[in-house]
């Protein structure tokens, strides 16, 4: 400490001489490094741009390649016909598309209500049980989907002695559940405490506050999170390998059913070019489906957010 600062009275009665000298020193020192800092900053921005390019390249390449290989397979028949026998050109994947819709629809019907209700529970309770559930959900997020598949096989396929869409739905629901719980919970947590309290202070029942204020405020986030969970599940293959079988056209949830990812797996590994063509077409359809879901998620969220204002 210099004598100068020691001379500054406790009340700080003015800057005087020391301040002017300090200002010079500070300005000089920071000016000297400003150029270097600017260059460093520019370098850092450059690195970020490179990183973005690196992370986008595989994605763009994947989409472009799948599109270029798969788009030729698309035709009206591709969506409406059932597959031809192995190696025979023509046919379609209508069985797999319908199967996927049934399986994923049922999975969402199971996972969404349970997931949102669990999220509400986590929101309302802070305590050991809530902590344990939250931790379990986090662990469940990391469980390999193939482990979920073999579990569903043991629970729903073995006892019934045959594959079924329902068993696949169950496996996918288990897979989606933790994602739905955590994304819904964080969407609900984003609703400010003050809005809760404003509702309660009006004498409104707690449940009604949750429904009309918390759930309404979090709706955009909940919808987005759920749709993305569905988009994730629709491409899952491992759980279905154990559970749904791969069947021609079927509408009953209790019977073996085809699914788009399974078509990609079985036809993609076939030695016949016609089958591989079908696999690429199916992969392209799956990509389109995920893309559409993501776009819908964004649109819905945007609309709900605008309404909220």
């Amino acid at each position, binding site marked *: *400490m*210099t004598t100068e600062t020691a001379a500054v009275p406790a*009340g700080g009665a003015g800057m005087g001489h020391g301040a002017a000298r300090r200002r010079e020193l500070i300005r000089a020192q920071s000016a000297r490094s*400003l150029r270097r800092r600017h260059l460093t900053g520019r370098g850092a921005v450059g690195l970020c741009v490179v990183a973005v390019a690196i992370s986008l390249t595989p994605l763009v390449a994947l989409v472009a390649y799948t599109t270029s290989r798969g788009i030729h397979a698309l035709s009206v028949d591709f969506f409406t016909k059932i597959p031809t026998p192995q190696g025979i050109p023509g046919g379609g994947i209508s069985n797999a598309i319908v199967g996927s819709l049934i399986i994923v629809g049922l999975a969402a019907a199971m996972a969404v209500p349970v997931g949102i209700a669990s999220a509400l529970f986590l929101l309302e309770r802070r305590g050991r049980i809530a902590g344990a559930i939250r931790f379990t959900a986090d662990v469940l997020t990391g469980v390999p989907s193939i482990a979920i598949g073999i579990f569903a096989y043991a629970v729903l396929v073995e006892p019934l002695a045959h594959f079924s869409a329902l068993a696949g739905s169950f496996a996918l629901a288990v897979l989606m559940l933790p994602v739905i719980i955590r994304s819904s919970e964080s969407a609900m947590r984003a609703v400010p405490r003050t809005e809760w309290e404003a509702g309660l202070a009006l004498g409104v029942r707690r449940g009604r506050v949750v429904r009309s204020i918390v759930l309404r405020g979090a709706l955009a986030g909940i919808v987005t999170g759920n749709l993305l969970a569905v988009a994730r599940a629709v491409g899952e293959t491992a759980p279905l390998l154990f559970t749904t079988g791969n069947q021609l056209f079927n509408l009953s949830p209790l019977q073996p059913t085809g699914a788009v990812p399974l078509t990609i797996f079985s036809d993609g590994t076939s030695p016949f070019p016609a089958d591989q063509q079908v696999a690429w077409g199916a992969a392209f359809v799956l990509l389109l489906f995920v893309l559409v879901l993501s776009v819908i998620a964004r649109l819905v969220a945007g609309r709900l957010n605008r309404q909220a204002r």
Partner: protein
Amino acid sequence: MSVTPETDAPETAAVSLADVSVSFGSHRVVRDVTLDLARHRVTALVGPSGCGKTTILRAINRLHDDTGGKVTGRVTVGDLDVYARDTQPELVRSRVGMVFQRPNPFPTMSIFDNVVAGLRLNGVRNKALLLEAAEAALHHAALWDLVKDRLHTPAVRLSGGQQQRLCIARALAIEPEVLLMDEPCSSLDPIATAKIEELITRLSTDVTIGLVTHNMFQATRVSHYTAFFQLGDDRATGELIEYGLTEDLFDKPNDPRTKAYVSGQVG
């Protein structure tokens, strides 16, 4: 306390705004403001909410660069043309400090680290200089005696008023010529507010202060000059209605809109 500037000494402008407008997208928030902040004086910016006071204040240190606001017109700080093509925003901000509505000390830093953040992050390494600047700044913010024995405890343990004084110290540590204060007392109780006001009066002997406030009494207590803003006839864009010595503006306003506002008839 009311402060009267010596009217016989002509005052130079530390900050000049000429025809300054700020737009966000297609919405012009405030337009055609021509205003000086007199050197080593406190200029209060008053007016109803949403009339562009804060927007104008933030145009002075180029904070709109990062929020997508477009500033037109001319702003000068001393001899520095703030929006000139070759002016670096960092340079402007090293001469113009800012204090925000809510105390915003960096929560991961100690009291000392907060005060010297503007120096360290700008490349000042000299330990003695950092210590000296921190002590001087804390003195100026009337905080030194309170925190000198716990400089290395987290800043967030201080009370709200103390945190705001810490933020003032942090802004002062880089020795700015101008200090912008955006409703610095709006989240503080009357005692903490009184301390900040006392501080503003004292600081104005060395620093030029631009103060946005909703509190008319605060403007009359601490400012030498007052600028009154209000929405224009289109009800969408803020305008500078009247500007002058604080006493004059409150006692004998020229514009009927100013009169209505300061006498509490509207707003």
